[in-house]
């Protein structure tokens, strides 16, 4: 006697599958709605400076004077843009060679010591909160610079140093992964030809891992670009382009942090801050796309 293939009449597993699918779909939908609304709200607020307050985009991007509550109100954001770019690029310039050397040390020179000691150190550096970096920068680096260089010690130099330590873990981790993923034969071939370790690193390892290293550097720049409080604490917050690295300056994030609480929602001065936020967000997207482009290149 042939009994039906499905033993139970009720199929609890079908309901179960349905619940699982709906639940996970709901979660991912929440994530997508969140990102879409972030983009939408920041963009609509940021663009209102141009559409509602009729500020010229070019004036905002190239203007040198920031006086949103002055008469007439001036919305020159170039000092902030300059500050953001110069601190994050400088930070990357300091952190990139350090990170590469740390990676070489961990993979090529002392793998055992590196994994047991340097690796955890780097991970701990990544875990320290940014306000703590800011505090140490303010109480160690700034006074130090004040003693050595003319000025108050605050400025782009102090900001970049703090940022460089903050992004060092990002750069080092990616460089380490890239070096570890190199095929063994590649290096052995070079050693077999009589090249020294440094020659091998310089001629073989560096060029082959370059796209991956660049990925790490761009990720580091992106992180430095978006960092707010640590930079704000050591940069001085003067809204103009400084004439030296040791002179008070400002970044997009520091301007937003400082003034957002002191301006009323909906005013031109407040909208202008949202425009700075929009620039920040657009730069983030650009960094993400550069990283993706680099990742695709390093796969080939």
């Amino acid at each position, binding site marked *: 006697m042939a009994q039906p293939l499905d033993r139970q009449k009720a*199929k609890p*597993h*079908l309901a179960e599958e349905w619940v699982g699918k709906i639940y996970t779909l709901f979660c991912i939908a929440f994530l997508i709605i969140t990102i879409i609304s972030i983009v939408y709200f920041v963009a609509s607020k940021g663009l209102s400076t141009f559409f509602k307050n009729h500020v010229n985009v070019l004036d905002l991007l190239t203007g040198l004077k920031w006086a949103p509550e002055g008469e007439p109100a001036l919305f020159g954001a170039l000092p902030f843009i300059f500050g953001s770019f110069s601190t994050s690029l400088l930070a990357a310039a300091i952190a990139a060679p350090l990170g590469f050397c740390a990676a070489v040390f961990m993979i090529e020179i002392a793998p055992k010591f590196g994994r047991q000691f340097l690796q955890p150190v780097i991970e701990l550096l990544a875990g320290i909160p940014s306000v703590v970096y800011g505090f140490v920068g303010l109480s160690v680096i700034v006074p130090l610079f004040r003693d050595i260089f003319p000025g108050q010690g605050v400025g782009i130099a102090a900001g970049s140093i703090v940022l460089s330590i903050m992004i060092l873990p990002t750069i080092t981790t990616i460089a380490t992964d890239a070096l570890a993923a190199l095929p063994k034969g590649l290096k052995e071939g070079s050693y077999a030809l009589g090249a020294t370790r440094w020659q091998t690193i310089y001629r073989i390892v560096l060029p082959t891992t370059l796209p991956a290293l660049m990925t790490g550097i761009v990720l580091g720049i992106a992180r430095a670009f978006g960092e707010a409080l640590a930079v704000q604490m050591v940069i001085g917050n003067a809204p103009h382009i400084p004439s030296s690295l040791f002179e008070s300056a400002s970044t997009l994030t520091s301007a937003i942090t400082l003034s957002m609480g002191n301006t009323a929602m909906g005013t031109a001065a407040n909208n202008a801050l949202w425009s700075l936020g929009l620039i920040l967000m657009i730069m983030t997207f650009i960094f993400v796309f550069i990283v993706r482009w680099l990742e695709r290149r390093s796969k080939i």
Partner: protein
Amino acid sequence: MQAFGMTVNDLSVAYGDRTAVKNVSLDFAPKQVTALIGPSGCGKSTFLRSLNRMNDLIAGCTVTGEIWIRDQNINSPETDVVSLRQRIGMVWQRPNPFHKSIYENIAFGPRYHGTKNKKQLDEIVEESLRKAALWDETKDRLHNSALALSGGQQQRLCIARSIAVKPDIILMDEPASALDPVSTAKIEELIAELKQDYCIVIVTHNMHQAARVSDKTAFFLSGEVVEYDLTPTIFTNPQRRETNDYITGRFG
């Protein structure tokens, strides 16, 4: 216990554009062991994995044709795959016990399928382990991790796990290829034992094993069944030249 077989009609499997199995029709009789042999990449494992719709998991894999169990074509889209798989046990090349205790490994399936009673579960566990010839070795440590067992024991545990949900058919994908000779012999004994209750389909690389354990043998080559007959016939008097070449070791 009523025994069921399986009939496969014109089954083809493709990964994207690449056809792995071409128009295979086979009949698996109840209470018999059928061996699928052939060189690597001939499609025998792919074919086996289609029989319990395991290939559904692989993106881009399409299976066409009919697979009949009792009076149902299980390869139709309406089939409730989850219920279906309960009727078809599967054993893999490498033993893959769950990361749970020996007891839990066996009780996991039946409990899900509705047996909540502790005493009934205990009985199922004991019966399945006995059938898999593992009871004596494990009865004192049922609640220890299954991963602590040896490879051969793990594989027998996996067989016990699959018979605990009372399937009609058991599919085995090279069940002994990762084991030592002693464990292999035990698994082969076990297959002969299980044959009395189940329809067993076994993929194997080892022709001696096929000759020892199976009643019928299908020879696969490039995704097609070249020859399907009683095992003694295949090994002593093959009708096709390719079969003869393969079993005499001329290729593969």
